[in-house]
């Protein structure tokens, strides 16, 4: 019996050492150490042995069982390590295989930039208001100090609606200024973004439909200095760094004084295509709210001062995203849209 145990140990060690993988090892363990295995058989046969033989056989069998468990555990560690090593190998990995695309739709580039502008202003406490695109002549012109004989009202610039003659496609977002002043008590900070229309020939930089951003701030201590500060904050957010600006005279009937704000070209040092080699980019028309506009809206221009500004969203989007033709925006071509 002792020899049988010794022989069993020799065979078992050899089988364990030869186990090729974890599954084979599991089978060997089950064969050798399971309920039906030879060791279990030997242990079960002990009661039938000679009394003198029993302790030795029992001890040997148990020692062998412990030893085999240890050997199997050792072998398992080795096999597991081999397996991990194999998994870590990258022989069959082709790093140039393409990714499987996660398909999705797209937001219009104008929407993307519009949101950035909205977010900057709402973070500064501005409300966003909207006005109609089909606008009363009164709000688009008259209340903005653009009288009936003003050149801006000519048919070649403005789309007029048929009918009673008091409706136009708004030519700017500025009517929202008046609508705001009529309905809200100062102080307030408001922006409005949306579609505007001018009867222009279409080319790479002009479309008859485009988008503007309008801003209006009215309060008791609002100066041109605040106006510059506000736009600088916006530009810093949009372009990711502080940009130099310059203010120069500009004429808009609904502000006085009126200015134009140029921004130092963020794309070059000393001139490029975007800035027309001048290093300055015309960014925004702006000014202090005209007393006649205050009067038309019932705001006391002695108590309150205010500023207003307006700029084109399309041009800004073109600048930020490097788009060279404004006509892409309204063309609905997936080859363009899919890029955003």
């Amino acid at each position, binding site marked *: 019996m002792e020899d049988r145990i010794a022989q069993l140990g020799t065979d078992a060690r050899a089988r364990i050492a030869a186990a090729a993988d974890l599954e084979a090892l599991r089978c060997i363990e089950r064969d050798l150490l399971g309920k039906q295995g030879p060791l279990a058989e030997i242990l079960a046969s002990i009661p039938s042995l000679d009394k003198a033989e029993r302790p030795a056989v029992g001890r040997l069998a148990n020692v062998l069982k412990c030893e085999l468990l240890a050997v199997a555990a050792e072998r398992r560690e080795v096999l597991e390590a081999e397996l991990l090593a194999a998994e870590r190998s990258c022989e069959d990995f082709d790093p140039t295989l393409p990714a499987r695309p996660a*398909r*999705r*739709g*797209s937001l*219009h580039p*104008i*929407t993307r930039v519009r949101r950035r502008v*909205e977010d900057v202003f709402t973070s500064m*406490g501005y*409300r*966003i208001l909207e006005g*109609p*695109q*089909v606008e*009363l002549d009164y709000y688009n012109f008259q209340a903005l100090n653009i009288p009936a*004989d003003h*050149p801006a009202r*000519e*048919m*070649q610039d403005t*789309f007029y*609606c*048929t*009918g*009673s003659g008091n409706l136009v*496609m708004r030519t700017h977002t500025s009517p929202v200024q008046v609508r705001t002043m009529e309905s809200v008590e100062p*102080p307030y900070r408001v922006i409005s973004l949306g*579609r505007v229309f001018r*009867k222009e020939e*279409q080319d790479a930089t002009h479309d008859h439909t485009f988008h503007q951003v309008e801003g209006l701030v009215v*309060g008791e201590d*609002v*100066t*041109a*200095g*605040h106006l*510059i*500060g*506000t736009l*600088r904050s916006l530009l810093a957010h949009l372009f990711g760094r502080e940009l130099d600006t*310059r*203010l*120069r*005279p500009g004429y808009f009937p609904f502000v*006085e*004084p009126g*200015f*134009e704000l140029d921004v130092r070209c963020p794309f070059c040092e000393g001139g490029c295509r975007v800035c027309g080699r001048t290093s300055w980019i015309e960014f925004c028309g702006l000014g*202090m709210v*005209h*007393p006649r506009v205050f009067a038309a809206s019932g705001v006391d221009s002695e108590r309150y*001062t205010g500023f207003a500004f307006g700029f084109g969203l399309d041009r800004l989007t073109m600048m930020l995203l490097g788009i060279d033709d404004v006509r892409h*925006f*309204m063309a*609905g*071509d*997936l*080859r363009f*849209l*899919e890029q955003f």
Partner: protein
Amino acid sequence: MLISTRWLGRHVDLGGLAPEDVAESLTLSTAEVEGITAFAPHLDDVRVGFVQTREPHPDADKLAVCTVDVGAEEPLQIVCGAPNVDAGQKVAVAEVGCVLPGELKIKKAKIRGVPSTGMICSVRELELGDEHDGIWVLDEDAAVGLGVAEALDVRDTVIEIDNKSLTHRPDLWGHRGIAGELAAIHGRELLPLDLSLPPTGDGASFPVRIDSVACSRYVALPVDGVRQGRSPDWLRFLLLAVGQRPLDLLVDLSNFVMLDLGQPNHLFDRGRLSAEGIVVRMANAGERTTTLDGEERSLGEEDLLICSGAEPVALAGIMGGEGSKVLEGTSELLLEVAHFDPVTVRRSAIRLGTRSDASARFEKGLDPALPMEAAAHLVRTLTELQPQITLPAPPTDVGAWTDQSREIDLRGERVRRLLGLSLTDEEIADSLRRLHFDVSAGEGALRVAVPSRRAGKDVTLEEDLVEEVGRIVGYERIPVRRLTAEIAPPPPDERRALVRGIQDRLSGGARFHEVLTYSFLSDDALATLGLADLPHLQLRNPVREGERSIRRSVLPGLLGLLEPNRRRRTDVRLFEVGEGYLPERASERGEPAQVHEVALVWAAPPAAAAARFDAGCFAGLQGVVEDLLRGVGFDTPDWEVPDGELNEPWAHPGRALRVVLPDASGAGRAVGVLAALEPGLHRALGLEGELASDVVAARVSLDRLLECSRRSAGYRPIPRYPATKLDVALALGGEVGVGDCVAAIERCGKGLVASCELFDVFCGESVGAGRRSMAFHVVLASPERTLGEADGRKFLRRLERAAADLGGELRSE
């Protein structure tokens, strides 16, 4: 507008300022400069030469061989064909290597066997005029060897000012106005200019009658003894620099005064004017006249005419007529300087398509005090050139004009408050005086006298003066500040949150692409889509004929994009969030109702016959809309078959559903519609042949969504007891809908049906003719106990009976 810096020098000393400095200071304080260019740079390369000898060419009668001294060691031998070349002349010589306008490069040449090293230039070759009947003979004083520009002292830099930035500044449409600005900006003196009329004879003034309010002043001054001819070089070069081609003395002089003071004027041949005199009147409807450019023009009652007696001789403020030309040899002239209504001139010029330098100026609303000064300026300039001229009679000066000059009180505090710039009252007064405004101390304010030339529409209010102060002091001095205020956060913006939610949902996993389409629809598009009968607000002046209707919905624009995109992509999914206008629902003031909606279109090749029942775009778009509404906080909508007229001509009459959500009161409210495209439209939209598509579209009203109640926030507890899953298939007559089956399944579950999902629809022989099989995953669960097999069996028995009641059978076990 082009401004010559040399011309500016007649009015202000710009010494020490480079043209770039001048341009930048104008941009920063007055008006936008668009560019700076050197005037005729080739005149630096063309040199003054002295013709030493002129010999006939041995082989050509019309050519001459000249030796020309250009200040080099050796004189040049030049073959010249001009009849007027002669020894002893100073001429302009383009040497070998010199490049003349038109990329004409001068090379060494042999002309009929005689070597020629250079060219003696004509005026036209140097782009200095039209004359080409001979070479240009220079002044005897010109220094040999110098560049022509330097020798004649005509080197110039031209500044181009953006006309748009001058629309509100009628005073800046001449060099003196710009010079005045530069004098103010740089603190220099505006040089004096005598604008008083020289004494005149006491003959009879020329008769003028004004019959229209559109002319508020007409000055007419007879001038005698004028000798016609060529203008002196100084005048020609000033005009050339600003892009005016010199013609003859009288035309050039008239232009000079316009470009110097900004006041257009006209010289008539007095001998050709009727003895009745000048009559200024509106044209009669249908009246015709021929203008100087030879065009016959048909006039209307809104066009203002200058007439000689009854005959039109000029379109007031725009262009002279054929009959106003000064004939050769005439020495007796009538100078007209007038003031016309800007709007009348502008509208006439636009209508007749004849915008001119003169009309551009009148349109801006010129100073009515200016005509007499301009008349004096012209006469004085002419007198310097031709001392023999006489003014036989006092000027006629008629019209209802008034002096515009005014006084405005300016509070220093107002300046400081609007600009946010601390300036003393003295600094404020000083900046205004630099602009030649008189400033005195008023009551608690500065009293500012605004001269007539600025007081039209330009400077009328205190705030206008604030602008003057700001731009002269320099806007760069304004300290940049940030707003501070006690300000509450803006109220939640539900509409914007909704729009953003929709955009994000659709552009994400739903794979829709956002587009923007025009608000204008063409008559053709409306007719194609069957929308022509719906009321559309219309444009009076569309960009393109027929493209005049303002959209009621954003969907039609999207439908038009399907065909071009389907050409390039198999699966096209587009959406737009936008506005439509309904004229039939107008406010009291006439504003059409503005509706906001999201429209979606989906076009893809038709699903294969064997595809799963929900493989097509219809079910797909339903899923997108359900997900969209849940994603922005609403319940899964109900889909209702529209009862009655849908009023969506683009929609398939049968395959259309309303999107219904509970409103605030809990009642169902249609927020939109989803439908397959009307079959007849596929061809009209170009979606046939290889582009044949399954097309489904939907519109959802944002206005109505905002009135619907949101899904209650909160969660349903996760079931504590395991659920039982069963797959069942019902074979029923084709008229029994999936909805009926679901209702039956739920009824049979007696409250235990946790979910019921259709996964297969099948027709075929095994199901029976006219019948279809619908298979469902059914989940039974109870919040109180673990369900056993018995529950499943009971459910199936009930369902078996229910199927029989519906005229079919339960197919699965």
